């Protein structure tokens, strides 16, 4: 046995080696192709027992098969299929057929007939099911061909009477995926079997096997997804399925009902056991609500989720979902919500609860109480109280969606959402806070509700608190007491968790600007001014005081009477804060003071925006003046770059655009400078030192091009071409410099070849863009290509040098929107003087908190770099869960970085920064190329620039003071 195993190991091993040898060359591959299917044939013939044959097939399945040989392999497999007696081998062959017909580029219509034929004599149910699965694969590859689909559907219908559930399952799946969708075509090609697919599937709603019932419903849903309009008659059938014993069936039935309710919202259905009739969507809504108290939580989640998207439902049905008539001893009782509301409206808020306060009042008529309502009653009350948090989250989401479309419902569900702020699971709490924020423009919080909301500010979870701050930013508060309450609670929050500073200030900024009139009467109290006495000047560095001022100044912006209440030091503080926290403090029209920055009138649209015009003008200037003397060009470029950089600082919305162009011009400038070098005129041995500038320039240009390509979001392919072109120029420069500085020709051979390959791949990648690049470096280079390929390296270098000098400067078209990825590390702040002490050899966790803007796919690209004083660098990949997405284009990274080092004698600073990783394979250009042309053209050449990976630092480095102590023995 051991010897056998060993032999197999060797076999496999040698196979792998062989593959490696064969792969690089396509020619060899082709040679091996016939041998592969032949090998399979031989193997299968050799097989003495079914187990052997199975082994061979399994081994065969591990390797991919080329498109050309698929058909041959299929034939061999089929041949063996007919001969084979063992069901398991046939099963494997059937599944291989399916696998093979999935091969890209292979059209399986040639094997379809054979596959259908095999069905005829098959006795084993499992093999039948597998064969039908194969047909499904074939069918999905040939969806364009209606006659094939017809035929397959017919086959499926024939096997629907099979006694095995597996076969019926697959048949239904096949009908669902391939059944005719277009009415017209179906009628034309009407044959006896493929009549009405809906009816055929519908007949199986009552199948005895729950799996088949589920498959039938799923097939129906599949038809719907493919665009077939389901008939309304199915509705009553589907309703019956809601009472099925099996949860999969119920779950699928809920979906089907939902689909139907969206298709026929307005049709009328009768209510059983009465003469009334209601809209279908209302009936379906009631039924799905009923499923929220189903026995299986899978169904409950499903039902709760779907409720959210039923927006056509009538409002009184909707409001019933929040209604649960309470009673105690058959007497009507009010809910705590109702009592709270009443207390609030009677002006007697927060009275202590007495025993019997909730004593039931009036008697209820026993006949009128309906304990199990068929309607929507209390669906959300149940959903929000569910045992499983998945259901609760689904219910909160549904509430959110319904409330967004119905303001009156939003008002009603408020109490319930506020209650959810106290859920035991943090996710649910967070979700309900987010939901509340989303519907906040529809609602105004009552004081008692605000009270409950604010209580959550003390939560120890930072996410919860920040979500709550976001919520408060866009909440409407009804009274000045409410504002005061919010402020007090926020300040309490600030003292308890000082790290929340920024978030609280921002929150107060919005709170102030939303409620100027409510803040006005509070101003004297908040600033603790007194009509007669001067009060001591508060400490300007106190975050709480700043918080109060942020609230007041933002309110004062739209309330001109407010500044009159300020005392002298308030004005001084205003001036200070306006400078230091300009993003939080708005410009105010203060008496006796001029506005420092002239407000930009909002009426100007971006198109006529002067700064934008300026940007374009300066660019025009640069592009037009390319034939000036080199000195002039350089100066002009320098000025323009300076202008653009300043513009980027002033106009935040144009910053991306300006930076991008400035970088590009910078590259151009460097290139020109490098070409101006004297070194080109001097004899080779003399300028060994002088080449420093040229090679540095080449290197820098390369770096900048990667930044341009990967750090900006919104870069289009037009820009990518230019960037790549610039990179090509840099590489040419590098080649020239190396050629000049190195002695000997040997290394040059390789470099030249590589460069030419790059030119070639550039041409292939951007073939469509080449016409726009008249007179450019590449354009000229491609003309000379035949010469280049045959000439020696030294000649190549010469040609390159002249082309580089003669080539024109390409116009960089600007995209609509361009944003530069930025990152800002909030924590660690780098201000601490206390070193972080830990025992050497052990680890210490450093909390890192950063905001990222305009980063695409941060989970994949953002890394944290830690640089130790000894030059050791460590790159940490944060977990995907550490990224949060508070808004479009914004991300937040909250993670922990583990530090460790050997013992130091002194505390020292390490640097923490964020990096943006890139991989040139992922570049937008290569993704654009259609696959087929890729593989064709690739045959001669290996893949260009095989995944150059690198990182761009995109945040300021923060210094952290650490001190690894030697371990005590």
């Amino acid at each position, binding site marked *: 046995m051991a010897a056998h195993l060993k032999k197999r190991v060797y076999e496999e091993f040698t196979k792998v080696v062989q593959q490696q040898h064969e792969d690089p060359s396509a020619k060899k591959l082709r040679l091996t192709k016939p041998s592969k299917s032949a090998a399979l044939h031989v193997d299968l013939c050799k097989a003495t027992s079914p187990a052997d044959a199975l082994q061979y097939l399994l081994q065969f399945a591990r390797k991919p098969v080329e498109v050309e040989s698929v058909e041959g392999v299929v034939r061999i497999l089929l041949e063996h299929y007919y001969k084979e007696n063992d069901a398991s081998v046939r099963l494997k062959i059937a599944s291989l057929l399916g696998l093979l017909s999935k091969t890209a580029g292979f059209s399986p219509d040639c094997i379809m007939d054979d596959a259908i034929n095999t069905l005829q004599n098959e006795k084993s149910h499992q093999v039948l099911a597998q064969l039908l699965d194969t047909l499904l694969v074939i069918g999905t590859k040939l969806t364009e061909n209606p006659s094939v689909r017809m035929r397959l559907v017919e086959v499926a219908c024939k096997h629907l009477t099979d006694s095995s559930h597996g076969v019926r399952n697959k048949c239904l799946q096949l009908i669902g995926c391939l059944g005719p969708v277009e009415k017209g075509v179906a009628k034309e090609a009407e044959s006896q079997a493929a009549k009405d697919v809906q009816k055929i599937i519908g007949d199986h709603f009552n199948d005895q096997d729950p799996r088949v019932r589920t498959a039938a419903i799923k097939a129906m849903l599949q038809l719907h997804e493919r665009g077939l309009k389901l008939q309304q008659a199915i509705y009553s059938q589907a309703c019956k399925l809601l009472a099925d014993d099996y949860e999969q069936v119920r779950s699928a039935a809920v979906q089907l009902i939902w689909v139907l309710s969206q298709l026929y919202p307005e049709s009328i259905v009768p209510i059983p056991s009465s003469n009334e009739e209601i809209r279908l969507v209302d009936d379906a809504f009631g039924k799905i609500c009923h499923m929220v108290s189903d026995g299986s939580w899978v169904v409950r989640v499903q039902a709760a989720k779907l409720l959210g998207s039923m927006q056509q439902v009538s409002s009184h049905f909707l409001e019933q979902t929040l209604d649960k008539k309470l009673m105690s001893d058959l007497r009507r009782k009010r809910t705590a919500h109702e009592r709270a509301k009443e207390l609030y409206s009677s002006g007697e808020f927060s009275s*202590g609860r007495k025993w019997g306060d909730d004593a039931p009042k009036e008697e209820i008529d026993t006949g009128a*109480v309906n304990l199990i309502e068929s309607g929507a009653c209390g669906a959300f009350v149940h959903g929000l109280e569910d045992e499983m948090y998945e259901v609760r989250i689904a219910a909160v989401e549904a509430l959110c969606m319904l409330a967004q479309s119905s303001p009156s419902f939003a008002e009603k569900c408020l109490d319930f959402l506020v209650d959810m702020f106290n859920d035991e699971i943090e996710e649910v709490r967070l979700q309900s806070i987010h939901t509340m924020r989303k519907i906040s423009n529809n609602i105004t919080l009552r004081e008692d509700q605000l009270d409950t909301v604010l209580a959550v500010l003390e939560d120890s979870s930072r996410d919860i608190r920040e979500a709550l701050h976001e919520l408060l930013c866009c909440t409407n508060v009804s009274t000045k007491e409410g504002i005061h309450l919010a402020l007090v609670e926020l300040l309490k929050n600030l003292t308890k968790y000082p790290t929340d500073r920024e978030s609280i200030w921002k929150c107060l900024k919005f709170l102030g600007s939303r409620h100027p009139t409510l803040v006005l009467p509070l101003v004297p109290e908040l600033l603790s001014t007194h009509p007669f006495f001067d009060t001591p000047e508060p400490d300007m560095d106190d975050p709480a005081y700043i918080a109060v001022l942020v609230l007041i100044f933002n309110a004062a912006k739209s309330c001109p009477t407010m500044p009159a209440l300020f005392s002298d030091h308030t004005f001084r503080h205003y001036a200070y804060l306006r400078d230091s926290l300009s993003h939080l403090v708005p410009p105010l029209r203060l008496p006796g003071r001029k506005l420092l920055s002239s407000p930009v009138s909002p009426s100007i649209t971006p198109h006529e925006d002067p700064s934008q015009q300026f940007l374009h003008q300066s660019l025009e200037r640069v592009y037009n003046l390319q034939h000036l003397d080199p000195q002039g060009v350089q100066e002009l470029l320098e000025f323009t770059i300076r202008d653009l950089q300043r513009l980027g600082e002033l106009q935040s919305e144009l910053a991306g655009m300006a930076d991008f162009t400035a970088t590009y011009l910078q590259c151009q400038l460097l290139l020109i400078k490098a070409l101006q070098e004297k070194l080109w005129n001097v004899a080779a041995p003399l300028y060994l030192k002088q080449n420093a500038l040229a090679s540095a320039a080449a290197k820098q240009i390369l770096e900048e091009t990667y930044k341009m390509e990967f750090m900006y979001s919104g870069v289009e392919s037009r820009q990518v071409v230019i960037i790549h072109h610039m990179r090509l120029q840099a590489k040419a420069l590098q080649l020239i410099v190396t050629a000049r500085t190195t002695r000997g020709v040997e290394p040059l051979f390789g470099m030249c070849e590589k460069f030419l390959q790059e030119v070639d791949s550039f041409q292939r990648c951007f073939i469509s863009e080449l016409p726009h690049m008249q007179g450019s470096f590449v354009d000229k280079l491609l003309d000379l290509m035949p010469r280049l390929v045959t000439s020696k390296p030294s000649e190549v270098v010469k040609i390159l040098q002249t082309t580089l000098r003669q080539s024109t400067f390409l116009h960089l078209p600007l995209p609509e929107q361009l944003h530069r990825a930025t990152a800002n590390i909030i924590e660690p702040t780098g201000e601490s003087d206390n070193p972080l002490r830990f025992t050497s050899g052990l680890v210490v966790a450093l909390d890192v908190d950063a905001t990222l803007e305009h980063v695409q796919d941060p989970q994949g690209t953002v890394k944290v770099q830690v640089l130790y004083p000894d030059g050791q660098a460590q790159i940490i990949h944060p977990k995907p869960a550490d990224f949060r997405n508070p808004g479009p284009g914004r991300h937040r990274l909250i993670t922990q970085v583990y530090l460790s080092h050997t013992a130091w004698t002194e505390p020292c600073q390490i640097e923490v920064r964020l990096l943006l990783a890139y991989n040139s394979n992922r570049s937008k250009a290569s993704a654009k190329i259609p696959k087929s042309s890729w593989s064709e053209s690739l045959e001669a050449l290996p893949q260009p620039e095989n995944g150059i990976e690198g990182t761009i630092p995109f945040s300021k480095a923060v210094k952290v003071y650490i001190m690894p102590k030697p371990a005590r023995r």
Partner: protein
Amino acid sequence: MPEIKVTPLGAGQDVGRSCILVSIAGKNVMLDCGMHMGYNDDRRFPDFSYITQNGRLTDFLDCVIISHFHLDHCGALPYFSEMVGYDGPIYMTHPTKAICPILLEDYRKITVDKKGETNFFTSQMIKDCMKKVVAVHLHQTVQVDEELEIKAYYAGHVLGAAMFQIKVGCESVVYTGDYNMTPDRHLGAAWIDKCRPDLLITESTYATTIRDSKRCRERDFLKKVHETVERGGKVLIPVFALGRAQELCILLETFWERMNLKAPIYFSTGLTEKANHYYKLFITWTNQKIRKTFVQRNMFEFKHIKAFDRAFADNPGPMVVFATPGMLHAGQSLQIFRKWAGNEKNMVIMPGYCVQGTVGHKILSGQRKLEMEGRQILEVKMQVEYMSFSAHADAKGIMQLIRQAEPRNVLLVHGEAKKMEFLKQKIEQEFHVSCYMPANGETTTILTNPSIPVDISLGLLKRETAIGLLPDAKKPKLMHGTLIMKDNSFRLVSPEQALKELGLAEHQLRFTCRVHIQDPRKEHETVLRVYNHLKGQVFPFWGGGVLKDYSVQHLPDGSITVESILIQATAHSEDQGTKVLLVSWTYQDEELGSYLTALLKKGLPASTS
């Protein structure tokens, strides 16, 4: 007709002393064995003499099932098993088995040591009794004997509470015990599958109540505690040792954790510590949150809650204390109450119902001056709050459970008669099932209609299904076969196999019938007429679910066949004008054959061709 008999010995139209006798298919099962809180005489235990006057109970009962550890469900167990005498198996879940003896011991101590009763069960008896207990897992099917099997379902209510399904053959009963359909902070909601029992015996404590969301209550509770603690006041929460106390502990513990509060929380020792230990062990019985997080941290290992010491009551500063007993009638909770009552900053929160006459009841009803023993007058300045945290299903919950289980009959116990009336009426009205509410000692008989399983041979089944379309579960289907009843089992086999098994030769049974027809024509013409007549007929028979086209054939030898039925015509020997039609069929085709004869007897239509 088989029947199920149910007799409540306790908890019939009453709360307390749960004890229900069920006899189902010849098996006798006792559900719960509780004591009554309201009585101190013989009435506190169920009247076991109802089962038998003399002799041991073991002979009359097949098993005893205890639903959960509350004393009104298990308090009489040692008395029943040791003093009356029962040696059969007692079934309960693992947590119940663990916690039950602690409570019984406590109950014994109070009754014997404090009240000085004699003739009560001893500690040893409790131990002996617990030895007879068989512990079961959730959803585990336990075979009590060959026919009787029981299965436990999760019931919420308290740790380890379970609903039990009792099944004999096809007949089954589900007993819910006490259950809760809304999850709380430490337990999940009751759940049962669609087991369609013949009878569901359900508690109905809150038959006429629909409760508000628990979130409001919880929030109120937390807010009150939080405010008082922030003010620097002390909070006293009198609790019963088990159940609610743990829920409130979890509630406060998580709140403290969430809000980063520092004030100490104390739990007066006693039973509780032992019980908490079991809560830590039986994590699988708790709710989703605790189950999911226990890998990081067992929620019952409280970080903020510490054991209470008498001396702590005088410590300055805020604190929260849980103390027993729950009604402030004696013990530690009362002592602490007396110390703290004078300060208006303090607060007492009563989390449950208080019996009349206790201090708890007095302060809840608003009394501010209390007369303590020794003529002392205690002025209550502290705030008094009431928070109800009950773990029974409300009316909606009961209905929901009925909907989940889909029983054929419902029987209500553990509730007040008046309230049951209402629920009974509702159940009958909405589910269209009959509902019963027997009083103690009253026997309810429920007729069942059990389905009798019959084994069918595979060959026969395949043959019969091949004839028609797919078998439809909802429709009855006609099939031919032989039913063999042997050794208490039923088998349906094909006739051939039955013959083989019985060692009999097959006999063919043919019915023949002569029909006289007045027809002067020749025989073959008559035959032709009959043939044409039958050809035009549509036979109203369903073969395997569809109307089959019967093949009517005219054979060359002058006879007609309709499927296997043969018709021949001969002239009457005496009267040539009368033709005799001979109709012959096998017994399998009886239906068709008799139809044909009837048809022919009506005569042929006047003249067809």
